[in-house]
């Protein structure tokens, strides 16, 4: 015999408990903390690059906003405590999609090829590089990652940059920044960079959006990331590799503008040099390489106006000059590799490399790492 009072009481208690849990959840806001609970590096091997992707069914990987979950899934998190101090020389490489390795397997990326070379420092330590690149173009995104990876106590930083990451207007366009508004505001205030901490692009959650119901997508993403650990472990695949893709454009529009700027001159104020300097100041105690990464140099239509889809010649030339000048003045370890790679070694974008292109770059960067390893840090 069913007791209707019992049913009613169950329903009422369910509703009350559900409401209470939601309110408590919103008050505590534990989503970031949940991100640290990870099956990676315990049940599944850590990922060699940060989670990113728009094709999870085929890539076993996808973009999430929880930076803690992203870092917890990375292989660097396993080596945080496991590696005896001094046994390896740990190099963190940050940058955009060219570092992350669009269209490249983890082994084919810049970092993968540096590691494959089994480089050693002068004092015999094995150089182990970590790919902390993330496929959006923003120095502020790099600064955020550099801030978060300090806990891994790297021995060297390699910061791959390109002009497209520098414009002030582009700094907060990355979704990973927009959905970590508190962290970004912290960066802005701590470093005094020229960014608006009240920028409308930053996503602020209301109290109700912080409830379990409001954050269901974030929670599901953290859970999904753990599940994708199984196919990742089973296949070693973390990116969708299409059979064909459109090559970077060789014929270009006769557009001389860059980010709304017109020739003749780019000035330092147009660039977020303050963000770059903030990142460098974070790591005063270890050597940091700033590398102007290779770009595709077109020889097609309007190549006299533009180097490629991203850059008009005047803006890029000015950028190189500004960066070189800043580096010289401040004594940065700066490498300008803008024309290192042949045009045939670029894939679907003016900054994405073929495996061979990444190998050439890895050779150059690897030598630079060895050259600087053991040298005195910046004063």
């Amino acid at each position, binding site marked *: 015999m*069913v007791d*209707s009072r019992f*049913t009613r009481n169950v329903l009422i208690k369910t509703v009350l408990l559900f409401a209470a849990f939601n309110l408590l959840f919103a008050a505590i806001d534990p989503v970031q903390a949940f991100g640290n609970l990870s099956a990676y590096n315990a049940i599944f091997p850590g990922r060699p690059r940060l989670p990113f992707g728009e094709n*999870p*069914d*085929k890539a*076993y990987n996808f973009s999430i906003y929880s930076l803690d979950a992203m870092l917890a899934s990375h292989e660097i998190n396993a080596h945080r405590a496991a590696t005896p101090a001094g046994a390896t020389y740990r190099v963190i490489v940050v940058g955009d999609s060219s570092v992350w390795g669009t269209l490249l397997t983890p082994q084919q990326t810049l970092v993968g090829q540096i590691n494959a070379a089994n480089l050693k420092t002068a004092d015999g330590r094995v150089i182990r590089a970590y790919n902390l690149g993330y496929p959006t173009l923003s120095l502020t995104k790099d600064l955020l990652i550099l801030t978060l990876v300090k806990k891994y106590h790297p021995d060297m930083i390699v910061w791959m940059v390109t002009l497209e990451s520098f414009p002030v207007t582009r700094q907060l366009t990355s979704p990973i920044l927009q959905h970590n508004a508190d962290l970004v505001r912290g960066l802005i205030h701590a470093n005094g960079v020229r960014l608006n901490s009240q920028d409308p692009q930053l996503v602020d959650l209301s109290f109700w959006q912080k409830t379990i119901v409001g954050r269901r997508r974030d929670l599901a993403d953290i*859970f*999904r990331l753990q*599940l*994708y650990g*199984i*196919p990742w*472990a*089973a*296949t*070693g*695949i973390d990116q969708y590799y299409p059979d064909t893709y459109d090559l970077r454009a060789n014929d270009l529009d006769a557009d001389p503008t860059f980010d709304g700027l017109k020739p003749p001159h780019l000035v330092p104020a147009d660039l977020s040099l303050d963000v770059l300097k903030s990142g460098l100041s974070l790591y005063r105690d270890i050597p940091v390489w700033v590398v102007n990464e290779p770009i595709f140099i077109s020889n097609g239509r309007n190549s006299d106006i533009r180097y490629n889809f991203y850059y008009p010649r005047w803006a890029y030339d000015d950028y190189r000059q500004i960066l070189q000048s800043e580096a010289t003045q401040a004594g940065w370890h700066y490498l300008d590799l803008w024309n290192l790679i042949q045009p045939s070694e670029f894939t679907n974008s003016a900054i994405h490399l073929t495996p061979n292109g990444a190998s050439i770059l890895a050779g150059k960067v690897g030598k630079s790492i060895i050259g600087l390893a053991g040298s005195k840090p910046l004063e």
Partner: protein
Amino acid sequence: MTLTHILVFSAAALAVGLLANKRWQGWLILVISVVAIYWLQLASPIRHLDFWLPTATLGLVVLSWAVTRTSAPQKPGSSSTPVSTGSNGLAGLIVVLIVLGIGLTRYTGQFCCLVSSIPPEISQIGLAIGLILLLVVGLFRFSPSVKIGGTIAILILLGIFLVLKNDWLVMVTSTWLRFLSGQNTSLTRVTDLRWLGYSYIAFRLIHTLRDRQTGRLPSLSLQAYINFVIFFPSLAAGPIDRVERFSKDATASPQNFSEMFNPGGERVVFGLFKKFVIADALALVALNPDNFAHVTSTLWMWVLVYTYALRIYFDFSGYTDIAIGLGCWLGIKLPENFDHPYLKPNLTAFWNSWHISLAQWFRAYFFNPLTRSLRSMKRPLPTSVVILAGQFGTMILIGLWHGITWNFLLWGAWQGIGLFLHNRWLNFSRSHLAEWAPPGWLRLGLVYLGTFLTFNYVTLGWVWFALPEPIQSLATFQKLFGL
């Protein structure tokens, strides 16, 4: 069915179960079910097809009902629903009004999301309705014998089934439909022609037609017949009920709703959890045509295959739980489709507990008639041959019911061979081991061993089911066994 569909259906079932008396329930279920077949129909790039397919479903249902209403003796004492010409006319009128109402959204703008694209012109809809009515009137007027009428109807249903389950025929038909609607035929895709729930609807219709031919079908009103065939909780994923049982519940005196609320709610909640939490999570990991080739080790391949086995169970049984729960709220006790199938100690027991309603359908309309006819031949075949033919044929047909592909055929053959081997083992053990009485612990151990072997045999069978090409399945087997 998406979560939104299920939540809306739950609200509708609760409202109907709570508010309406038995008499009104039937009419409300009719309205909701007719609307549901349009709402659930997947969008098609072929112009207006997502309107015409549900309309064709209704046409087939009404015409099949008309065939079953032509002269034939009723089984004495069989349960029946009250039938009157007025009631049938009203049911027909309601269906026509709903179809026309949905068709009118072409001019008024889409009402919510009842159809995926703009319906065809009202004159075309009127023409289609007129044609169906003409055929119904013709059937009543000329009253063909149920043997001929039923057989033709079954052949038409099987013909459509054949087209829908074969990729090549789907392509041919889709190309033809694109040509008729003046669309680019080079864009034809195998996904153009996805008819919601046809596999289940066709098998329910064939069941009523065959039972009518054998005189077992109760007399049914049009409303009761439509409700049985397109009952909205079981429209998309079954179970395949039997009409005698369904109509008995539909006409039974109403139960106290509070007595149905708890068991129904429990099934719906469990079903939602099984489908949307467990199965959907496992789907990210389970064996599929994309990941099978990427797996690098034997161990992980086993993980993916086991995950698929669990995923398909939780997915399908979750939907069944939801259907049974919704049915319960409406006072209809749909049959169980699963009974802990992975815990069965042999394959025969597994097939008595996996997709039970489909297996029973094939047993009633294929296995039993086939084995009966083979046994009654002038020169009777050996029992083992009869069993082999019956089990093998049944399982292959069950395989092909999912789609006419080599892999479904091989999956059916895999199950047929397993069932036959188990049958022979049973026969052998009965004749040779009848007097062997193992101690309790050994008996228990054998049951566990049987369960382990059965689960793994079934799981390996899913390798055929999960992948579209035999070569992919063979590659998977190679990796599973480290070959």
